[in-house]
């Protein structure tokens, strides 16, 4: 925990220094880094919401690992402040110069009631506060079951999750539109909300699988092959869900060929971002699809953990691919990108580990824990 904290702080200070040198470059790198980690944390929230709502028993074994990610949400809210402060360095609709183009002028004036600094910042604060409160409640009520007299708070968590599910879907759509889609103000894709949800769920499940493996290897948690098999199936399902939304996002845009829409993909399919687009198809989808569809891999601890780690890394490229071309279409990476992601990821990891210290690694007093421990699936 301390190593992650110190290393994260060093990277944070470096980013602060970079901000002084070139605020626009560092803020873009910071946006990519924060949204990458945020998609993973929201994915973990999504997994918790789905398992509570469906009243699933087996995920109880690994639930606390997902809950460890919940205290990261308010930390990410704080780490998002530089974006809100430096919004003018990132979003083109903040620049007067963007209005000089007649076509752009029309669209930007139309969107002004929505895309203006006050409303943008207010919405962002609303999303971050709401998600933070929800995340903390999810963890707090679960941890409360560990303490005598071990109240059964599952029904309360189930109601909270069911009510929050549509709210999460809508706020995530709003956040995706504000923070990512509005980087290209002329572009619109109606499926973008589902797309962001799928990205988050895939990343969250990958992180959860990796955490399960990590704790299993250290003999902290009695995770069985059946749990890995279940996690593997969920990972595969979300991989397909993400590919489905990504495919239709591309296909419908491509075949209709509207100038205002295809620009977004043209930017990513020619020039330096072409390689990254091909990686998205073959590296982020093709390879994991072929591997994860097999029964053997889903039941193999090591192989599944490897695929989870692979997908977690691929998720960074996905978020990068969504944002970076709007920064500079001629250059894929910036030196500040790894520094920013190191700062955000390490500080988030430190926050998760700090919140987890002294806590049970599994909700052993949850009424469904026994069922989860006995879970068998062939």
């Amino acid at each position, binding site marked *: 925990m301390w190593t992650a904290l110190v290393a994260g702080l060093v990277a944070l200070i470096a980013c602060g220094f970079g901000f002084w040198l070139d605020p626009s470059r560092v803020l873009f790198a910071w946006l990519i880094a924060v949204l990458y980690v945020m998609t993973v944390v929201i994915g973990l929230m999504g997994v918790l919401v789905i398992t509570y709502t469906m009243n699933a028993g087996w995920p109880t074994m690994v639930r606390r690992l997902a809950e460890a990610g919940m205290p990261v949400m308010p930390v990410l809210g704080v780490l998002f402040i530089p974006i809100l402060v430096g919004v003018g360095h990132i979003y083109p609709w903040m620049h007067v110069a963007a209005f000089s183009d007649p076509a752009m002028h*029309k*669209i930007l004036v*139309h*969107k002004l009631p*929505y895309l203006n600094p006050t409303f943008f910042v207010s919405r962002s604060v609303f999303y971050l506060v709401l998600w933070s409160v929800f995340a903390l409640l999810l963890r707090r009520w679960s941890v409360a079951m560990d303490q005598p007299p071990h109240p059964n708070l599952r029904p309360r968590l189930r109601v909270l999750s069911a009510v929050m*599910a*549509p709210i999460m*879907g*809508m706020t995530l*759509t709003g956040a995706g*539109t504000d923070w990512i889609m509005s980087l290209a103000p*002329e572009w*619109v*894709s*109606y*499926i*973008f*909300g*589902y797309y962001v949800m799928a990205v988050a769920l895939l990343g969250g499940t990958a992180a959860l699988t990796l955490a399960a493996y990590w704790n299993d290897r250290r003999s902290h948690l009695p995770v069985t092959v059946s749990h890995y098999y279940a996690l593997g199936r969920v990972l595969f399902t979300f991989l397909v869900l993400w590919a*489905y*939304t990504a495919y*239709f*996002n591309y*296909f*419908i*845009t491509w*075949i*209709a060929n*509207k100038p*205002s829409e295809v620009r977004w993909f043209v930017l990513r399919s020619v020039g330096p971002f072409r390689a990254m687009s091909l990686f998205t198809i073959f590296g982020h989808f093709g390879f994991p699809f072929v591997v994860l569809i097999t029964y053997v891999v889903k039941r193999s601890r090591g192989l599944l953990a490897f695929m989870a780690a692979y997908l977690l890394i691929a998720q960074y490229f996905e978020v990068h691919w969504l944002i970076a071309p709007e920064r500079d279409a001629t250059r894929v990476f910036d030196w500040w990108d790894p520094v920013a992601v190191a700062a955000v990821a390490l500080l988030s990891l430190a926050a998760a580990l700090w919140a987890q210290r002294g806590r049970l690694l599994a909700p052993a007093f949850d009424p469904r824990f026994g069922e989860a421990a006995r879970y068998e*699936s062939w």
Partner: protein
Amino acid sequence: MADTPVITGELSPPKLHEQLLSPMWTPRGRVFLFGLALSGLATLLGAFAITYSIWRGTGVWGNNIPVAWAFPIINFVWWIGIGHAGTFISAILLLLEQRWRTSINRVAEAMTLFAVAQAGLYPLLHLGRPWFAYWLVPYPATMHVWPNFKSALPWDAAAVFTYALVSLLFWYLGLVPDLAAMRDRAPGRLRKRIYGVFAMGWRGSVQHWRRYRVTYGLLGGLATPLVVSVHSVVSTDYAISLVPGWHETIFPPYFVGGAIYSGFAMVIILMVPIRRVFGMQNVVTTRHLDAMGKMLLVTGWVVAYSYIAEWFYAWYGGDYSEQYMFWHQYLFGPGAPVVWTALFCNMVVPQFFWSRRIRQNDLLSWVLSIFALVGMWAERFMIIADSLQRDYLPSSWYYYAPTWVDWSIFVGTMGFFALLFLLFVRFVPFIPTAEVMELAHEMQKEKQEEAAA
């Protein structure tokens, strides 16, 4: 509050066997015969309207440019959507190891087949010259003329045909052990012979069951992507175009959500009378109603979310025609009552299913499910007819109204659906007997283990 078990009452095999199979040979009452006659009459009306349409040409319908896709395509999408719950219950719930699927999967699968049959009829008639329907198939033609694969029509043909084929195989495979049971138990030689032919020599040996399990699992895996793919393909019929209100990347998940929503509504509409008329409350319990109500709530939210997203992005995108379509034509245009009906039935009505009491009340669930089906039909009317009535050129705006032939064909498909369904519950074991018996056995074993512990 603990959930009701998926089977209640006595779980003894002979009693269950008798209860589930005897409706096939118990004489039917007047109500059944009245239903049969009514659905038969409606089918005849549909057949007459179809014959008339082919005889006179499609000019007898209300379709006219720019509303070239009207009733036929609205009803095609509505019916094919209804079919989705069958595949969802058979395939996805099977892979998710959900026990509550067991008692209702046969009815849902049959419903799928009968709904797909109605759906498939419409694009064929809409071709105008249905006798050339085989042109949609990429057969080795002498002139090397192939279907235009960039057109959505061959996609639909491929998607619907695959769907119908896999659904039929899945349904029939599940039926084989029950048909064999009918062969062994049905009174009269003729019945025994007929069921015997369809049972294809099933003897229930270990080898038979092993092969059955493997094939059933494989078909489940094959059918799972179909739940999503068919309606996604259907949605691209619209989304690939430039028509305002159609060109939306959200259409595939939005259509799939709506399809499963209407499908579960139809399963409730069919299951509620079945459990009452045949006294099946012990195998189709409040647990089933509760689970189906939750599915309606979840998929209703998918639809509601999609509406919110499309109305918002129509404004956000800034395209004038798109804004006009969503914020004026839909809400205040000539089709506004239909649009408001869709919004009410698909956004407000599912919210009733938050209440467990409503979910477990069969009569209320049944009434709300009818609203859901009406809502989904209204949604298809909104998307298809309302969008086409007013596109980019105000000079070509047109007010669409269906003719008596359109309505007659629609009533005919409903009648044909009902007729097939009534014949199905008369002659085919509509509750999967073998599966229910196996589940009852498992539940009894679990009870004994719990008692021993």
